[in-house]
């Protein structure tokens, strides 16, 4: 479980800061998940690819919802300023223990990565079928879980009331997701509904792993990969779910040997892999800038951003198939942002 230091949550300005942090947090999950997803060879590990892709898409939804809420309360999302460094800590110094930052790496798909990185990122306060954890407040009253962070944000929105929703409605971004998933935020009710989606899809609820839309929450979907089994609805057990068929088998030969933390791995100057890697960074930078344009007053630009996501995917797929000359593995996407070289 990850702990986030309690923030002052009193004013609308506090709310904007918290939402900016939420954008950073949701953004920070995407590159590690994408690295694992892109490391899968074409046609291999399709079940696992489907699981991770579904989670990434929902993280993109959460990012969009957080940005919509921020726009609704007259804030300005800052996507370039939200790009994390890898390996590096999650925003807000979120830690696996109170006060100890959790360092997120970029790694190829493996059970180890899923269990020790992704499941940690997504772990609910009280994972179902796990023993109850110690009550957090007793050991560190300054900290709470990500779910609690969102609940506190939701409560602040309720406390501040309808009067804070003075943002320009034309800045609200919709499309590409279902209408009941990505919608305009203009009220306490719509903002709270958005936060409910973020929390439920990510963590599930205290009593059920269901994440909405017939899918279990991210933590449990990653646990499916780690356990190699599917979590099915099972009325015969008290928890309502049990591990079973179909098996989810990781074919390690169907994963490119991508080096750990590509941003830390030097590439030979003038090599093809250096060129493709640089172009991948340029496309990523263009995507970040396109998202900034989208959520900073030009919602129609969402289409162009989606096009860049596909382009980034194709380039990253090229990259992971390329061995680093004299290296110990294949290259991987670095997710390095540089406005000056942004190019689709």
């Amino acid at each position, binding site marked *: 479980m990850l702990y986030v230091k309690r923030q002052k949550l009193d004013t609308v300005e506090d709310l904007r800061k918290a939402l900016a942090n939420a954008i950073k947090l949701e953004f920070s999950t995407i590159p590690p998940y994408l690295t694992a997803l892109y490391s899968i060879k*074409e046609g291999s590990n399709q079940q696992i690819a489907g699981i991770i892709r579904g989670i990434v898409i929902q993280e993109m939804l959460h990012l969009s919802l957080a940005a919509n809420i921020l726009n609704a309360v007259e804030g300005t999302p800052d996507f370039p300023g939200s790009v994390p460094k890898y390996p590096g800590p999650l925003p807000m110094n979120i830690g696996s223990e109170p006060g100890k930052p959790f360092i997120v790496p970029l790694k190829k798909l493996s059970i180890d990565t899923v269990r020790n990185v992704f499941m940690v990122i997504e772990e609910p306060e009280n994972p179902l079928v796990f023993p109850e954890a110690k009550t957090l407040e007793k050991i560190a009253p300054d900290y709470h879980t990500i779910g609690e962070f969102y609940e506190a944000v939701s409560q602040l929105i309720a406390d501040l009331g309808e009067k804070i929703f003075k943002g320009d409605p034309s800045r609200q971004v919709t499309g*590409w997701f279902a209408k009941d998933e990505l919608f305009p935020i203009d009220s306490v009710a719509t903002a709270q509904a958005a936060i409910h989606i973020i929390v439920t899809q990510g963590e599930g609820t205290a009593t059920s792993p269901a994440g909405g839309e017939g899918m279990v929450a991210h933590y449990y979907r990653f646990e499916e990969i780690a356990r190699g089994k599917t979590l099915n609805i099972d009325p015969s057990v008290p928890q309502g779910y049990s591990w079973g068929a179909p098996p989810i088998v990781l074919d390690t030969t169907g994963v490119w040997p991508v080096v750990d933390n590509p941003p830390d791995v030097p590439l030979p100057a*003038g*090599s*093809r892999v250096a*060129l493709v890697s640089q*172009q991948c960074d340029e*496309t990523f*930078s*263009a995507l970040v*800038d*396109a998202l900034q*344009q989208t959520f900073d007053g030009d919602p129609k*630009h969402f*289409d*162009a951003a*989606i*096009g*860049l996501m*596909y*382009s980034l*995917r*194709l380039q990253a*797929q*090229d990259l992971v198939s390329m061995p680093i000359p004299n290296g110990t593995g294949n290259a991987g996407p670095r997710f390095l942002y540089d*406005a*000056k*070289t*942004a*190019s*689709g």
Partner: protein
Amino acid sequence: MSYLDRVRLHFSGQFQADPSTVNNDPTHYDNATFLPEYQLPQTDTSANGWWNPDGSASWRLVDCHVTRVCYVDGSSTNDVAADPVVGMRIMDANKRVAGKLVDLDPQQQMVSQIWGLLVRLTDGVNDAFSGPFERASFSDLWMRSAPVGTKMPLGVFYQSVLAPVLWGDDRKSRFLRELRAAAKHDMLSIKFNLDGYDSDSTSATFTLGRIVGTIGPADDDEPRQFVLGRHLGGTTRLMTFMPCVVDKKARRILADFGNSLPTVAPGGNLAPVLGALTLGYLDASKTFQSLGDVPYQTPNFYESTAGIVELPADRDLTNDELKALASNPVAVASNGKTLLQENIDGLYVRADNFTYRLSPGDTAEVELWATQYGELQDGARINVSFDPTGLQQSNGPAVATPTTALTGFAASTPIVAKKGRATLKLTAHDPDNPRGYIDGQVYGVRPIPQAVVGNPPGSWVDPWDFISVLVFDAFEAAEPTWFGEMQPIFTQYGNLYPLMDRLIDLTDYDAIAANVQVLSFVFALPITDPNSMPVTRDLSAAKRAAILKWLNTPGPDGKPLKGTEAPQPEAAAKRHVPTTEAVTSELHAIKSGLRKES
């Protein structure tokens, strides 16, 4: 007014062209004989899917910088301290995907178009200007170098406009102020030369080549894809066609040697083979009169001028010279021997846009321009006739037939230009599927000055100056279904563009049904959008409409209509499968960089 104007900037760097090459072989369009190995890279023994089957079709500007800016008074600088535009970057889009490189047809691959490209002059953060590049085809492809090494020895140029241009801060740049003042319609003219393309998939610079170009002001009453000026040609193999402009006010000739000078190696230095190179004119007695030397062997000449020179270098043209130039051909001489000159009587005819996709019932209004010694020629007689010689039948079905599918001209009836302008109306009719597995038919239509018909002595014809037209078959689908009309279309697309398989398997109904939203989005995009599908832009409007109708009209199960599967055609196994030898055509040689053949 065009890029060949006193006010202009030059840039150099690299370009990236990443076309998928599976569709370079016409027979690969045949779903019935398509083999999985056609999606694999070529080997020493098999052409397979040629040299880049996984290409994305992306076309990019890479590491391009401004090398020199030129001013209205004829001065110029390559010093950033003198003008902040020097050293700035010429980049493509930074908030959407790259442009796309697209062939017109597998049997006309020599007018590859760039679609959806955005061009910016930028410091990386703020743009001094930006504008969409109006789609254009390359022209004047030629063997610019001996085939040395693995890079293609070919050169081509692209010319088009950037419009509408968005202007940023002028950065206190004299050049930007002069350019903006000259570009009254917020339109810029851009021309670039490409060479040294690397099609060797084992090379570090695979898909990259050299680009050297020029940007200047554009006028809205001039052609967009060629220079309204003097055009030089000839039969020499040492140089190729090039434009000039006589600037009477500046008393100079501006001549563009950019795509016309040979190099020592693909993408290498300009070859000294031309010796003393001079620009001038042929006087009444056909004697060459020099107006100045072309300093093409000066170090960095090509990158810092894009091959454009202003002559005479150190004096004005005299009244007598201007008068002589008005009625005598401009010419280029090498070591005293004339290599290039204007056509007989200074005549020149060209279609501005020369690449068209038409559906039955469509009429293209082709803008024809006729000049004599660079001036618009009133009453010019233009002969227009079918000319399929520039198409590539290759190993595919017959091209350019039936001729009844494209009307609007007759070789026996010249078009007469008014003040140098004429509109050729080309009307498309249903060709009735003459090529079977390839939609529609491709045609070549050539307009030339009537006086040049029959190639009289002293005349020349630029083989690239003709109009390429793809006429689609008529198509109707009242209630399209997967097994009815859709499967063959999507299967062909999936076959020819293997990259799509990494996103959506277009041969699989379920994969399509699971991606209806994104597919209906990209198929509805305008053809000018870089994300428009098909990326190859080779589906008729009717087929695109049918695809959209199918995607957006779900059946009771919420998915696009599947229909019922027809029995498999029994003829498939008997169809002709092309041999490697057949594939190794002349076209293959050109497109694959003469690697094996050289």
